[in-house]
């Protein structure tokens, strides 16, 4: 069994050989499912998720809505962002089945839905639903962050207008709450082992701004350390945005080259070789 997170102080190396401010390898693809309106596949280290977006479209028959009339959509004449997360039974070490009503899954769905609804221009599509299906194929920490990033990419692919990328990333600290080590380094992009042993938070920002769209922290950590963690997390989000943007641009360039799309307005400045 390899060493645990306490070995960090020996040589400033994390359990997988990264430094404190390094992301894991991020690999992303968009338009992976031709049949869907938008789709993406994203890996952050060994966390692998895929996303399919359908819509905006007229909502299907809804159950449990009293009154019936008025169509679907969210309140106030905006599109509803319906997120469903399915965690594959084989995604973690122990084969575990998570049911539909699983509380953690529900929480993930709500968080993602709220974050995206704020960035997508939902007011353009009243009485309609944007349904986002996320599938977790493999888990190794930073699950929520990976899901948000995948959903963002898929929404870009679906062509839904949005203010900016919603990009997410986790941040942690090299020592635990109990150790109360003020000199602890903040950590970027935690893997599963680190998430289990160390305090962590998930932060999502709106593109390259410092505007925080999601902030989830479920572990105990001293408030004094939180600031450093947050700063590292936000800078991580900016790095993720660069990567995602590159993926989108690469795909666009590729499509133009193949002639799938015409080189149109606003694409001029893109270098197509």
């Amino acid at each position, binding site marked *: 069994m390899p060493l645990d997170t306490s070995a960090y102080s020996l040589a400033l190396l994390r359990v997988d050989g990264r430094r404190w401010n390094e992301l894991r*390898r991020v690999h992303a693809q968009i338009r*992976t499912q031709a049949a869907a309106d938008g789709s993406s596949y994203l890996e952050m280290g*060994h966390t692998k998720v895929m996303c399919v977006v359908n819509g905006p479209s007229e909502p299907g028959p809804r159950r449990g809505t009293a009154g019936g009339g008025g169509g679907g959509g969210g309140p106030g004449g905006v599109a509803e962002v319906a997120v469903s997360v399915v965690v594959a039974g084989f995604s973690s070490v122990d084969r575990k089945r998570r049911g539909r009503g699983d509380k953690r899954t529900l929480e993930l769905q709500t968080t993602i839905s709220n974050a995206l609804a704020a960035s997508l221009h939902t007011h353009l599509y009243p009485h309609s639903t944007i349904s986002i299906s996320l599938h977790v194929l493999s888990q190794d920490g930073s699950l929520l962050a990976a899901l948000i990033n995948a959903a963002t990419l898929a929404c870009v692919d679906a062509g839904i207008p949005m203010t900016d990328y919603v990009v997410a990333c986790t941040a942690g600290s090299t020592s635990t709450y109990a150790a109360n080590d003020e000199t602890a380094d903040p950590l970027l992009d935690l893997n599963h082992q680190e998430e289990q042993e160390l305090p962590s938070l998930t932060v999502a920002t709106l593109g390259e701004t410092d505007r925080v769209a999601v902030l989830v922290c479920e572990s105990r950590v001293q408030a004094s350390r939180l600031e450093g963690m947050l700063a590292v997390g936000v800078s991580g989000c900016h790095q993720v945005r660069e990567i995602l943007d590159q993926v989108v641009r690469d795909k666009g360039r590729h499509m133009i080259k193949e002639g799938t799309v015409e080189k149109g307005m606003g694409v001029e400045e893109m270098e197509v070789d």
Partner: protein
Amino acid sequence: MASIKRSLDSDPLQASISSKVYVRSTKSGKVQKIVREVYLRQDIPCSSKLCRTCQKMAPTDSAGRPIPFVLSEAPAGTSVYPNGHYLVPDTNAFLSAMDLFEQSSAFYDVVVLQIVLEELRNRSLPLYNRLIGLTKSEDKRFYVFFNEFRLETYINRLEGESVNDRNDRAVRQAVAWYSEHLARTSAGKVPTVVMLSNDRENLKKAKKQGLAACSLAEYVRQLKDGEHLLDMIPETEDGDMIKEKKPNEFLYPEYFSMSKMMTGVKGGVLHQGTFNVSPYNYLEGSIRVPAFPKSLLILGRENINRAVDGDLVVVEVLPKDQWKEPSTQVIEEEAVTKDENPDTEEAGGLVTERERKALQEEVKRTHSKTTEGHAQPTAKVVGVIKRNWRQYVGHIDQTSVSQSAQQGRKQDTVFVIPMDKKIPKIRLRTRQVAELIGKRILVTIDAWDRGSRHPTGHFVRSLGELETKAAETEALLLEYDVQYRPFPKTVLDCLPKEGHDWKVPASMDDPGWRDREDLRHLGICSIDPIGCQDIDDALHARPLPSGNYEVGVHIADVSHFVRPNNAMDMEASIRGTTVYLVDKRIDMLPMLLGTDLCSLKPYVERYAFSVLWELTPDADIVNMRFTKSVIKSREAFSYEQAQLKVDDASQQDDLIKSIRVLMALSKKLKQKRMDAGALSLSSPEVKVQMESETSDPIDVKTKQHLDTMSLVEEFMLLANVSVARKIYEAFPQTALLRRHGAPPKTNFDELANQLRVKKGLELSVESSRALADSLDTCVDPKEPFFNTLIRIMATRCMMAAEYFCSGTQAYPEFRHYGLASEIYTHFTSPIRRYADLVAHRQLAAAIEYEAVHPSVRSRGRLEAVCKNINVRHRNAQLAGRASIAFYVGQALRGKATQEDGFIMKIFSNGFVVLVPRFGIESLVRLRDLAEPEPTAEYDAETYTLTTSGSREIKVELFQKVKVLVTDQKDETTGKRGVKMEFVKAY
């Protein structure tokens, strides 16, 4: 149609990403395959101060501070490596000789490879923690090189290569890289990078590769002062010591089935008894069975076979050629098993190398001698009838805790060391290690599987910080199973409504007065220890016209207030006794009764149960009677006060006169008892003096014995014997009595032999009378304490006195050996003992004061009561003693005094010293005498231990020695204890 499938070659990062795949099996037998990413990099420095390139790219933490380079630019050289050298030890080197690396004379500039650290962590957490400690020390210059993350030193496991081979190769790869890397620096003298290993194969391969490599022994010989370090290298140098774990191998033999055990016991092939562990040697147990005069020895982990102290077990006697002598060596679990790892599922065999070594010495010793008569039958446990597991108080063994667990909430396995040395350490899985370190905790044992070396348990609750008074007191109470919670409401509801205002009714017509004698006119007084609040007994004496004396013993009439079978009675019967600790009293009855309504306080009227005798001036009983009464005590004396008044001839009032009469009579009673063969035994008794304000202990005093104490004692004995006769007469089947069995002669064998050999004294044990007489002759004219020492040791050979129901024993068995009385019971302390309360009820029924309550007539019920109060009584005594021991330790805190002591037990690697001044005994081990441990010659025939080497002393049994008594806090366990250091022998 796009495909998610992608070719990995296109990834630019590919070269520097690898993954670590390993398989682990969980407790439940599930196999998990874990895949972890590994990012390979080239910016991991070599940390040598010689290397400029690495220094330029040294990594920094978030605050921009680089980690300092540790390896010296001019490391020490040896005869073979004159240019200086850096050491790269492999895992075996650390596993087998960690002590060596901690030396201050050598072993500087060491590169600890990540792979080695990982392997070490899996094998032994304590060693891992020690190594981490070394890497943190600045002057040792240990550097952890993360070879598994450095691109050049990372290697993939080849097909067909075992994990160990791969790791060895990784070590060689790292050594090769280091040598090459350092060669590139433009330093004048390039240090050699030396691999240290005890694995021949590995060394051979390294040499083939052209690397500098040597075994530990070779290396140490090159050092200047190498010779004496050589001792620290373990002898087992034959190739690789790594034993692969065999799966599904059970460590312990299986238990017999219940029916097999039962038929075996019936047939006399197997024997059943309670398993006891030796307090000095955790690998030695004994069991007393009716079929053998001597108790059966059970030696070693395998024979003990998962039995825990107190379990009811079935044993099989081993063949005669395996019979052994009881151990003369101290084996402490903590010392022997300290490097074990709680996490791994028991690699290696059942008996670890160290344990085997410890036992080996034993065998050598027994074989070298031809002591036919000394050998004791040995046995092995084949099954457990009933576990006697309870909750145990202990603390977490700090060295068994991993670093991450100290911080995180990850579930972790640790060892708990119980307070009771006889209980093995318990494996505990907990998520809150960080919070529990340094606390007294309560745990239970859940199971002890065949596949696990130590029992597993779970955490119950935390009692608080170690060493705090509250936590230690509660720990004590729990450890001795004392019920200390406040009385529940149902119990308090049974108290008289009037509360503290309750008075003896003024009107003689009140039902309370029915059949009560009015003794208020008598000059009754009580004599008790200072500060006694629960006064059970009071006395009076007055001359009769006939020249005889009327003597009365008046006992608090508790049975008037505590009616049979109500909630209060039930609670009292469970508690069994009041427990006296140094700073606390755990009452059997609620305070209101114990210290007020029942207590025979002076100047107020109280109900009593009186025993009245007419005694001749020679203290012969003319007649006696028992009656319920109302008394009014004239005065409550302390022993000291009473003694002063009696000795002061000017004191001539009636009360003092009557005490003098009692005194004279008591001396005659005592003489009679002694003539009958009563033993005067001894135990080291001390009193802790507390500061009145803070109740912190400040000093320890030995208890003084006063004549007034034996005055009270004699009359209490007389009353008890009288009552015992009466209730036995009235209830031949169900009287609650107390007996003290004659100890088996073999109990005294050891002591008698010791006395014969060392002092030329004979101890005869045919009867209590003979024993008492021979104890009187055991004197050393030069040493007055010697007699007391022998009495203390004789006391330990005795059986414990016990309560019993008269129907369960034949009359001759009623005998109280110590008091030399045919029949005996407890009657005189009903406030603090439940047995006395029962005796009160039986006596009340015997004198036809009240109807016999069914509960005091039912034999089954009484037997259950006896069983419980026997246990409670013993626990209360032990708790009291432990409390004194704790406070003695506290009182000694920060002090160091030289005291005289006596050697009362001697082992081949240590001896036990009793210091009468503090009433404590403690083990002095040879390894405490000097560093390194002196070699010793133990002569079991003459009980003499002679040491040579680093310190030369000669000690023998019963010898008077001077010891330095200090308190010490054990750093690893956080326990504070008295420590004795040997100063000199007289």
